[in-house]
């Protein structure tokens, strides 16, 4: 009995002593970073890490946030992270970093790039939903040093932009987990949104626009904003945004009509015919008419049908062009057609996997668009200009 009791109390004491959460630290003993940029320093063959530090201070009871950028060099990213301590004073805390900006240089250095991604994914502190961006500027750290700040913290500003992508649909927000997933799985190539610096009121402002296309771990090309929208159409990630069509069949002069996209559903299906594979893309879009640049009676069913047809044609053309461009120029399956085939017909996929790149570039794509005009916002007619 006594032995039992001793054993029991020993168990409890040991459980209490040797277990528990790891890494005690007070909040203000850490430097919270909101985002980071990774560059490649060619002369020294080193990785340069720039972090944006958030320094919340309370002034008279009110909280104010300040941000400051620090850069550190290192052979690899982890070294750079630790070398930063000599500048920041305290260890940096990654758990609230929202964005990671990669420069083109670092992407070109394949090994360095992969080790960066590896560290970011492996480390316990970094978040899986951290957004990745590719800088179109020379270096990535410039992005963190732009002048115009809608928000005090640039990284949070970037995060806002990425989060609200569904209303613009000119870039695709890619969190870390998705990027790694696409990078490592077969039949799909990774993409990342790109960021550049624009002039605004003679000040620098960062702007996210377009997509960088990867093939394997190599960057092979860009897509601009409109192309990105078509790309989003195909991968069924379009949630909103606008669509402009120029209808020539309505009046003597072409009429420019702007739709607001409400809902989109894209189904991609492989079709096997005579030993050949083709992709059938069904796009079902629900839109609202939002802007028309001439007077037009679209309560007329005939007119409405024409508008619809014009919109369908536009989408078809857009999507067709992008697919063609990617097939011919980049040869990278960013649409995930391969993944769809492997899902639908794994046996077939096993056979064609090895020369998928060839097949992809010659893949026939059949695009069907079904545009559904739901309404026309608050007005049923265009404004008639009186004298």
């Amino acid at each position: 009995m006594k032995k039992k009791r001793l054993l029991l109390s020993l168990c409890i004491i040991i459980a209490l002593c040797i277990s528990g959460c790891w890494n005690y630290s007070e909040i203000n003993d850490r430097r919270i970073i909101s985002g980071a940029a990774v560059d490649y320093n060619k002369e020294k063959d080193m990785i340069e890490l720039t972090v944006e530090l958030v320094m919340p201070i309370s002034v008279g009871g009110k909280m104010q946030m300040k941000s400051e950028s620090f850069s550190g060099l290192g052979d690899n990213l982890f070294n750079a992270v630790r070398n930063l301590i000599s500048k920041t004073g305290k260890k940096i805390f990654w758990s609230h970093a929202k964005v990671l900006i990669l420069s083109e240089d670092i992407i070109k250095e394949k090994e360095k790039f992969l080790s960066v991604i590896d560290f970011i994914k492996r480390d316990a502190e970094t978040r899986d939903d951290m957004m990745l961006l590719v800088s179109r500027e020379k270096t990535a750290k410039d992005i963190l040093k732009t002048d115009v700040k809608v928000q005090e913290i640039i990284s949070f500003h970037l995060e806002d932009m990425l989060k609200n992508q569904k209303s613009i649909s000119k870039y695709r927000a890619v969190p870390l987990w998705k990027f790694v997933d696409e990078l490592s799985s077969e039949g799909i190539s990774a993409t990342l949104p790109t960021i550049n610096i624009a002039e605004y009121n003679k000040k620098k402002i960062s702007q996210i626009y377009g997509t960088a296309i990867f093939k394997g771990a190599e960057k092979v090309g860009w897509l601009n904003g409109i192309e990105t929208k078509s790309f989003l159409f195909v991968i069924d990630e379009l949630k909103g945004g606008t669509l402009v069509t120029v209808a020539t069949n309505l009046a003597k002069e072409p009429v420019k009509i702007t739709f607001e996209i409400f809902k989109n559903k894209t189904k991609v299906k492989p079709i096997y015919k005579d030993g050949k594979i083709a992709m059938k893309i069904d796009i079902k879009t629900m839109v609202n008419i939002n802007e028309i640049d001439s007077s037009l009676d679209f309560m007329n069913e005939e007119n409405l049908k024409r508008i619809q047809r014009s919109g369908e044609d536009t989408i078809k053309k857009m999507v067709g062009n992008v697919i063609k461009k990617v097939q011919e120029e980049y040869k990278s399956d960013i649409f995930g057609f391969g993944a769809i085939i492997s899902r639908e017909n794994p046996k077939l996929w096993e056979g064609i996997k090895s020369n998928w790149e060839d097949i992809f570039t010659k893949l026939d794509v059949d695009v069907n668009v079904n545009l559904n005009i739901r309404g026309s916002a608050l007005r049923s007619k265009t404004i008639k200009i009186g004298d």
Partner: protein
Amino acid sequence: MFRIIRDKILGKHRKKAVVTAEDWKLVKNLDENIKLFREIFNNDDTIRFREFETKDSSPVKCCLVFIDGMVNKEIVNENIIKPIVNFSLKDSNINRKAIDIFKDKIIISSAVKEKKDVYELLSSCLYGDAILLLDGFDSALLLDCKGWNTRAIEEPSSETIVRGPKEGFNEAIMTNLTLIRRKIRNTDLKFRFRQLGTCTKTKICICYIEGLASQEIITEVNRRLDDIEIDAVLESGYIEELIKDSPLSPFTTIGNTERPDIVAANLLEGRVALIIDGTPHVLTLPHLFIEYFQANEDYYHGFIYASINRIIRIFAFFLSTSVPAIYVALTTFHQEMIPTPLLLSISAAREGVPFPTIVEALFMLLAFEILRETGIRLPKPAGSTISFVGALILGQSAVEARFVSAPIVIVTALTGISNFLVPQMIGALIVVRLIFLLLSAFLGLYGYIFGVIGLFIHLMSMRSFGIPYMLNIGSLDMQDIKDTAIRVPWWIMYLRPKLIGDNNKVRQTNDGLYEKR
């Protein structure tokens, strides 16, 4: 184990022999008897000896012995002394013992008893009865003429309500019993008296409804009461601690209330009530964990409102035990779990605060407990000073002086306020909160979970007079959970609580549906 400790402590101090009771006996001589009582009440100036005679020519000498202040003087004068003085035994011409005539014909009193035992006489006398000694008899008459001032029936200040009966118990046991009796007019309602306290001889009443309360529980209560040997019982808390299950647990297994309607409701569910003379707090047992969250008002208000209140109380229990622990765990171990804007504002608030979060938390909780205790202890006029000092010094100034950070003040305030939603549990909450806090300060959320598991193991292992403390917590049966986190409408409460009211399960029969069970 406790017995060993007790014997160790008592060993030194127990007197070899308790003072032997003297052999007091009444004799047939009045003067001797008076002398006896004078000796017994030696040095006590409140005792009164009133000697008088009947109207006869050869009168019967009497002496009324009573304690000044404990008897109703009007009754003594009008109903005892006056009839005797005006009575003539000769006139009545009855061939009976004088003492019987006194008892049956003369004295106007609701309770007259003839007693020989001096101890019985004394104990009644000390409780406000008068002893009538007659010359020539070795027995005395015990006359009920209790009359002392008691507090009026007021609304209890500890349990205030908006809707429902506003009356509360007072310090007189008989008044309390009538308050209960008035609610349950049924011959099955039983009151059994006992006496406890070797020195105080406090009256205790075990109250239950026969055929409803479990006989085993009543037997068990009596058995435990039998074992008590204590000199004084001044409040029901004495008894509560002496007979409760899990004596070391901060959670109580015996409920107490000042409200007759709560006692009546408990009795009707098959519980037993212990009413102790001299205190308005009546004990009810068995007491389950969920009763902490039940208020009498729940049954008077609509069931939706009542259920919302219940859920809020349970949530307050969670807040009160866990908020400081979770806050400390999150801010010192799991910063990644805090939403970014919140993290930044906490970080800004903590800038310049010299102490670790755990020290802050302990300090503020201690300060809150000090404030709470002073608030109760302080004379009422000074009460506002305390709230002023507490709010201003501890709240604002401490934050401005960077003594503590603002979030911890919010955490403490939230904890403290939730505390009062389950007022009976405050004592237990302090302990639980502290344990949780320390666990999560050293082990993080893991430690907190450890604490929660420990708490549940503890609660699940407890019993109150044989009834599992967490009864029905894991059940999904409608009749089991009818009165737990939700309070179902009265028209669904067909059955009395499980196990407690098993003797007579059916509370309500609308259609005979549940009679079969």
